[in-house]
């Protein structure tokens, strides 16, 4: 494994890097409203390829196909999809640069962009640890190559990406922009995630603050990573209200909440933070969430959307992690699709009470983590056509399912633990699918038995090329 995933997260960001002399010579490329995400397996693939020795070139080069999207407040999203190495024979002898590639390799990159309609990034690596900078040669020569690719597919984002052993840097040309910008963040979507901030002067509010002294075991930079990670919570009632509250206590400052409902009397048995008066005044659940969060973190940046997330998908796409606390399987399916497209880890929790004949009720629940390039909820057998069909036959309504506060709390706490681990990597847990089943009658949470039959095959439902906004293919007439 080239990309380190063991142990607690260091914070690979440029502000911590030694200032290179080149920075004073290179053109000043500003940080722009762009977020880049690269799935972990793709990053591993790129690093493995770029570190292979070449018969004569000092460095290797590849091209990354990316999907595009729009996030919160019009932020551009650039999502890594597929990688292609430049063939050995496409390198030219040139002792003045680490690697020079020939016209054929560039033509193939251009054609890839044209055929797919997606953006293409030039990728190379500087084999050290810490934040990489583009060299003077990179900064002066590569923009010309990017410009050539842009001319063919101006509507897609293109750019140049440089990797180090544990960090990354990029210049991105978004559609219609004549000059490049540096993304605000490059996220390596893996377990743990790597949120690489490219802001030169990152804000580290309350680093080492007294508030978090009891959670120092999460890692030296955990507070900063947690403060910066943007977490979306869909459904702010039973499970979501616990999640929101705990995220605030842990120190998550960037939270986005989605719920189109108001508090009513029947919510008061489980909606954490709700008061009796909220039910009589029909206060929005999002407002309760905001009150809970700001009660703990007065300077938190919470954005609540009163409605279905589908009506404000941009807000969801901008999140680094999404937690779904929804009732129906159809909603879960749609959330997973959206998260896969934009390379967002999706954690799903839910509970149900089952009653068979005269047996005592069985309280059951689940926590699933759906990561890009890992088994999806269909692969895990949690979603299937039969389940969706049965639900649709009830007109999509989950009905007034029994809901109580304590199993929601157990599942939500477990999900928050998972999110914290995802962001900080404090536990050093290996990757692999997460599908936990909860038996509320015994209080046991354990890996779901289906995991042992999962095998190692790739998810057939979500292809690496299907990232970012969908690209439809025009059908030819006869």
């Amino acid at each position, binding site marked *: 494994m080239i990309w380190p995933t063991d142990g607690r997260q260091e914070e690979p960001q440029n502000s911590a890097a030694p200032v290179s002399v080149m920075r004073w010579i290179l053109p000043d490329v500003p940080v722009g409203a762009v977020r880049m995400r690269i799935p972990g397996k793709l990053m591993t693939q790129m690093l493995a390829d770029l570190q292979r020795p070449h018969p004569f070139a000092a460095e290797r080069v590849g091209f990354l196909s990316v999907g595009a999207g729009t996030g919160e407040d019009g932020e551009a999203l650039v999502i890594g999809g597929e990688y292609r190495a430049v063939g050995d024979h496409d390198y030219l002898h040139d002792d003045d640069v680490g690697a020079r590639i020939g016209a054929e390799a560039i033509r193939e990159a251009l054609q890839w962009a044209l055929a797919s309609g997606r953006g293409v990034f030039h990728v190379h690596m500087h084999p050290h640890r810490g934040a990489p900078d583009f060299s003077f040669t990179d900064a002066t020569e590569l923009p010309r190559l990017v410009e050539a690719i842009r001319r063919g597919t101006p509507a897609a984002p293109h750019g140049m990406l440089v990797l180090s052993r544990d960090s990354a840097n990029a210049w991105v040309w978004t559609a219609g922009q004549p000059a490049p910008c540096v993304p605000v963040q490059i996220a390596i979507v893996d377990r743990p995630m790597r949120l690489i901030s490219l802001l030169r002067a990152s804000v580290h509010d309350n680093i080492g603050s007294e508030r978090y002294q009891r959670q120092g075991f999460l890692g030296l930079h955990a507070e900063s990573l947690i403060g910066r990670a943007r977490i979306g919570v869909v459904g702010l009632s039973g499970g979501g209200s616990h999640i929101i509250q705990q995220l605030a206590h842990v120190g998550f400052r960037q939270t986005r909440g989605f719920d189109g409902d108001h508090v009513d009397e029947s919510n008061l048995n489980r909606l954490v933070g709700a008061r009796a008066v909220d039910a009589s005044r029909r206060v929005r659940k999002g407002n309760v969430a905001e009150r809970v969060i700001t009660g703990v973190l007065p300077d938190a940046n919470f954005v609540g959307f009163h409605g279905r997330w*589908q009506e404000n998908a941009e807000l969801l796409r901008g999140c680094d992690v999404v937690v779904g606390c929804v009732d129906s399987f*159809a909603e879960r399916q749609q959330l997973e699709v959206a998260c*896969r497209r934009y390379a967002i880890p999706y954690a799903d929790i839910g509970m149900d009470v089952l009653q068979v004949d005269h047996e005592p009720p069985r309280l059951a629940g689940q926590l699933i983590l759906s990561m890009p390039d890992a088994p999806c909820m269909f692969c895990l057998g949690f979603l299937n*056509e039969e389940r969706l069909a049965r639900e*649709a036959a009830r007109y999509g309504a989950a009905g007034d399912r029994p809901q109580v506060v304590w199993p929601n709390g157990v599942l939500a706490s477990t999900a928050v633990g998972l999110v914290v681990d995802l962001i900080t990597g404090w536990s050093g847990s290996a990757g692999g699918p997460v599908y936990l089943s909860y038996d509320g009658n015994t209080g046991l949470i354990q890996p779901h038995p289906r995991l042992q039959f999962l095998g190692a095959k790739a998810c057939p439902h979500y292809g690496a090329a*299907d990232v970012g*906004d*969908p690209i*439809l293919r025009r059908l030819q007439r*006869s």
Partner: protein
Amino acid sequence: MSFSEQEVRELTDTFPGAEEASEGGVRYFLLPSLAMPEGREPSLVDALLCPTARDGYPSRLFLAQRVHGGRGSNWNASVRILECNWYALSWRVNPNLRLIQMVAAHLEAFR
């Protein structure tokens, strides 16, 4: 499920702007500005044909807007597919139809 080239061509000959895409392992056909039966509002609406089983139906025709009038009245799906929001009636058609026949059978709901 795969469809013959001829079937797809029948679809594009009738709906010249037709496009296709896959999501979550499911193939969809986008039919821009599909004409609704006379008297329906709106008269033209973008449609998305899911030609395989979904939600317990052998196939589904999703519309970008709810269309008023016609035999079908039970709008039971409001879903996001290919990053757009779509609506569908509860309307069951024969599972063994060609693509163009599927569209016609679904449009019966609006007559």
